[in-house]
């Protein structure tokens, strides 16, 4: 126990401020207030791998490391699409995952957002469209925002999530 505690103390607090979606830095409190205004509660995210190479998964997992600490900002990952406001989809949609992706999306309550993560989620990436791949996520379900990158950095994924839930920032 002593070892565990002393290791915690040595490590200290590493969490960095959230990245600004545009130039203005969103203070944590502002963000949480906005989340409450838009959703009435914390933002719940469900992730679906629709056929990725697992690179994007590694960066999504990084969102909960102490440097990004996404949960500390009131954004958490949930186990069921029925609890989710936002669907993070990685990978080109493989034909073998097409049905599972549609069902996951249909299981979500409204209002719902979809963020396609990575070059593959955007357009199929190096896998494109083929007998085995339907290409980008938007070919299968409606997509609100796309985060490019192979894989995109955790900071880029957070920015994408923030932009999605603040429609004004998307500039549409």
């Amino acid at each position, binding site marked *: 126990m002593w*070892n*565990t505690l002393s*290791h*915690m103390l040595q*490590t200290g607090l*590493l969490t960095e401020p959230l990245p600004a979606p545009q130039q203005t830095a969103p203070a944590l409190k502002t963000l949480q207030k906005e989340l409450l205004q838009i959703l009435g509660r914390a933002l719940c995210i469900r*992730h*679906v*791998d*629709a*056929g*990725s*190479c*697992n*690179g*994007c*998964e*590694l*960066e*999504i*997992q*990084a969102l*909960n*490391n*102490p*440097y990004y600490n996404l949960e500390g900002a009131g954004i958490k*990952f949930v*186990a*069921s699409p029925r609890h989710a406001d936002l669907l993070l989809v990685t*990978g*080109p949609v*493989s*034909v*073998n*995952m*097409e*049905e*599972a992706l549609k069902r*996951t999306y249909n299981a979500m309550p409204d209002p719902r957002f979809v963020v396609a993560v990575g070059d593959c989620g955007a357009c199929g*990436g*190096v*896998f*494109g*469209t*083929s*007998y*085995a*791949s*339907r290409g980008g996520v938007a070919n299968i379900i409606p997509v609100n925002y796309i985060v490019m990158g*192979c*894989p995109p*950095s955790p900071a880029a994924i957070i920015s994408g999530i923030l932009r999605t839930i603040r429609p004004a920032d998307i500039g549409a």
Partner: protein
Amino acid sequence: MATNFMEFQAPRLPANIPTRRLRVDRVQWFQTAESFRKSNARFLTLWGADDRDRDGGFRIYAAYLIPNTVMVVEHFIEDSASPSYPGIAGFYPAALRMQRAVADLLGISTDEADTRGWLRHGGWPESLFPLRRDVDGSQQYPVESAPYPFVPVEGDGVHEIAVGPVHAGTIEPGHFRFTVVGEKVLRLEERLGYTHKGVAKLFENSSQQNGHRLAARVSGDSAVAFSWAYCAALESLTQTVCPARAIILRALALEQERLANHLGDLGALGNDAGFAFGLTQFSRLKEELLRANIVAFGARYLMDYVVPGGVAFDMTPDARRLLLDLYDAMEPSVSQMRSIYDEHAGLQDRFREAGRLEQATAEKLGAIGLVARASGIACDLRVDHPWAPYDLLAPKLVVQTGGDVAARVQVRFDEILESLRLCRLFLSEPPKDAIRTSVPVATSGVLGVGLVEGWRGPVMIALETGPSGGIRRCHAHDPSWQNWPLIEYAILGNIVPDFPLINKSFNLSYSGQDG
């Protein structure tokens, strides 16, 4: 009549470690498998090719690791109307799923009893074999329902739990069918193939100079291993000698990849056993390593770092210093975390005895890589079949005998320390020559092999060149193929809630096996 195929003088194949090719007939195809099994050769992979345009038939290949050599056994199947070959799963059970995948993609069948599809889930017509040369791979088809009969289990109080393909976390998709009595798992059957992206077909439209980009994305967490294996095959085919600096930088990148994955796994294993502190600490260490990667290699994940002829990004003296400082900070942290893990009664209670894979079972089923080393099997390409620069370094072989989750945790700790030692050696006096040399176009119709011990185990690329700088056939093999079926055994008698922990201790690639 017993033939010792290991004594055969087969011609050499271009490869980064000694590889030979043995051309056999139908009967010998079966006999080679039998003979290799008897002499404890390890089975690496199996793949097929459509050569009807060239000589009127199909080919089936199997690769084995025999002492000092990789043996690629090749069998030409003349009957192009209903091509078949004798299955070898009786000798090497790991071959079964590979044979089913070959049947799905090429329509070459075996005499095995299990004829269910593996990669095809109804996403393309049953009569269509996408890897055949007369099939246009870019065509799309509507998904049709294709029922998959799981092996039924009956009995008093027996029930099924179906999990997946979408899991309750940020992980890849796959389906697990548990048959349980109370809490205990009586049987587990896996169904994979959900992330099949048609990689093999895509290679045929890629140029030799570009294939490494696709190879790196076969399994993103092993990008360096796959792209290096691809480049090693291409460089062997073209007799390209990489600059010494590039070779060292590739090995450094490979060890960084091993470190990143092992750190991530150790954190996740702690978390799956209810010790969130472990996840916090190890994910911090991993993040610090990934940030150093940006400075040293130009990216957090090295998807396009290893390129034909060398590497894409040179390391500055500052980056070298940064990495050495990183290692100096990481090593005591990892050692401290190890003693915390070792002394934590609750954690050890979950780790020990969970998901035990006995050495005899591991041997019989053909375990490979990290999982094999945790079940007492001494195998590591960096040690047994070293290629440059590992031939000069004598990496230490890490072996644990427990075969349980605890042993797979210990292997990761040991390998982190060994990788840190190797990384420091790479950085002690890095050669000062170029980081890349040009790679000429390879002659058409030649087969070359690249083999690299990735963090999971041996990653193999078999590359056959096509005309004018193209690729005729490229087979990418992930060690997860061998190790996935082992989880079906490791889980037996364990309770369902321990499955995530056991599965994590293997941490196999779905994408790598689905292709």
